[in-house]
């Protein structure tokens, strides 16, 4: 059933022919439309302003205001109104003019009741889809604006903190407490400006990945060569926090076709997170394995884990997992969106399993490169 019928859709019929008005009224009212009929364009237009119908059936050839005049005025009243023109065979070219002027469809006389019902039903369906599409457009715009507000808020936050410190320090001048605050706050300012720099870097990485200017290189990459340097980089910081990091790699090659830098960023982000969201005595293990047709990389940790509620949001931009006791963990909230993007750019997927308080397991599946003797030369994506 069409929306017009569900809502008892309102139809205005404008035709100078009494028999035609009567026939339209009976045909449409019989299937539930609310119908009002008028014998000339002027009265019809006046009624349209008041009744606000979803659809108007208008005869093209009438004394006084012509059908074409009526169409133009109808769209001034309500651009979304659906107009069906009725025309005699002799005026088919005028009907085409009417459609060019904005009518939805035309019905040549004589027509059967079912033809009228069909065309009116389709007209209301068209109106419903138009409105749906407009609503989608409004929703999309709203979402875009919210996202812009959110991104600008995230970028401003460290900047605001630095500005506020500097402004208060200026106000403090040579007050006795100023020197201690100056030392403490300058350090904080440096940390926050660094946070801002990382935020901009990550944002740029994500934008470049999405814009296609990053991660387009495709060369054979053996992940067994990518992983060890990353693990070594993090060993010192992990040891300081009482966490052990290790790689568990097979003897056979784990070759994917991809951008070595981006694949490094992907694994680096996962290892960094596994250490960051861990605790003293915790472990992080990076594994790579060849499965049929794919290479599977796992980063497994015995960290604090992720709540069930947070899991679906984990790969969203700027989402941060809330820490117990409100502990702040450094980060931009863009690391995992970057990982997901890199994985998908390489034809792969990233997934996570986690138990709060036990740990997490991030799994990246990438298509394995063919190793059937095809020369390992660099090719564009």
């Amino acid at each position, binding site marked *: 059933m069409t929306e017009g019928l569900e809502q008892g859709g309102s139809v205005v019929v404008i035709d100078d022919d009494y028999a035609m008005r009567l026939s339209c009224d009976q045909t449409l009212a019989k299937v539930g439309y609310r119908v009002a009929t008028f014998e000339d364009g002027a009265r019809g237009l006046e009624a349209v302003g008041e009744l606000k119908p979803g659809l108007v059936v208008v005869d093209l050839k009438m004394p006084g205001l012509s059908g074409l005049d009526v169409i133009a005025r109808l769209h001034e009243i309500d651009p979304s109104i659906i107009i069906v023109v009725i025309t005699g065979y002799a005026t088919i070219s005028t009907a085409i003019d009417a459609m060019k002027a904005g009518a939805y469809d035309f019905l040549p006389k004589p027509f059967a009741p079912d033809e009228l019902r069909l065309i009116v039903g389709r007209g209301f369906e068209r109106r419903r889809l138009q409105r749906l599409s407009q609503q989608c457009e409004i929703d999309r715009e709203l979402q875009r604006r*919210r996202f812009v*507000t*959110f991104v*600008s*808020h995230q970028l*401003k*936050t460290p*900047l*605001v*903190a*630095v*500005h*506020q*410190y500097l*402004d*208060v320090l200026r*106000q*403090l001048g040579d*007050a006795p*407490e100023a020197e201690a*605050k100056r030392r403490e*706050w300058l350090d*904080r300012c440096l940390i*926050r400006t660094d946070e801002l720099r990382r935020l901009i870097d990550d944002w740029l990485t994500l934008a470049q990945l999405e814009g296609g200017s990053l991660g387009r290189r495709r060369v054979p990459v053996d992940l067994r060569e990518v992983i060890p340097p990353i693990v070594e980089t993090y060993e010192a910081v992990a040891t300081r926090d009482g966490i052990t990091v290790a790689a568990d790699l097979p003897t056979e090659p784990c070759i994917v076709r991809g951008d070595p830098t981006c694949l490094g960023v992907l694994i680096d982000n996962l290892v960094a997170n596994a250490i960051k969201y861990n605790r003293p005595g915790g472990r992080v293990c990076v594994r790579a394995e060849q499965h049929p047709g794919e290479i599977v990389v796992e980063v497994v940790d015995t960290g604090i884990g992720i709540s069930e509620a947070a899991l679906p949001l984990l790969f969203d931009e700027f989402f941060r997992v*809330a820490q117990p006791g*409100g502990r*702040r963990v450094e980060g931009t909230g863009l690391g995992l969106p970057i990982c997901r993007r890199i994985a998908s750019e390489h034809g792969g997927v990233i997934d996570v399993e986690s138990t709060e308080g036990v740990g997490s397991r991030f799994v990246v599946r990438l298509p394995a490169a063919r190793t059937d003797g095809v020369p390992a030369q660099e090719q564009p994506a």
Partner: protein
Amino acid sequence: MPATNAHSGTKSVLIIDDDPDFTAAVRATLEREGYAVVEASSGAEGLRKLRECEPDLVVLDVMMESSTAGYGVNELIKHSGEYDTLGQTPVIMVSSIQESPDDLYPRAPEVDMIRPDRYLTKPLDIQKFLEIVRKTLRR
């Protein structure tokens, strides 16, 4: 336990903001002016501290545990009826979002529920902020 010292007449301000650096700077400013300061790093903690400390003024951030957490806190304080006389506590909303709730939702009837006593954008103009705090607490 109310944070205001009844004998000295020290007024207290509850800062609800998830950025510890912004809070530290504003705290130093307020303490220098002789106000007692209580901090909360989330909306939920802020509501708890409101009951515990009965501050004379709330300085409230917007985007905290959710992007509209501050709006929710304002609504709960002022319109839920759960906070008795504390519901009268003036709220200065501070955010780096340039638009106030009235700018963001000009036609929504619900905007009455989230409208604070004052809306200021971050970074705060410290002199102007202190002037507003003084005026608000004098009422």
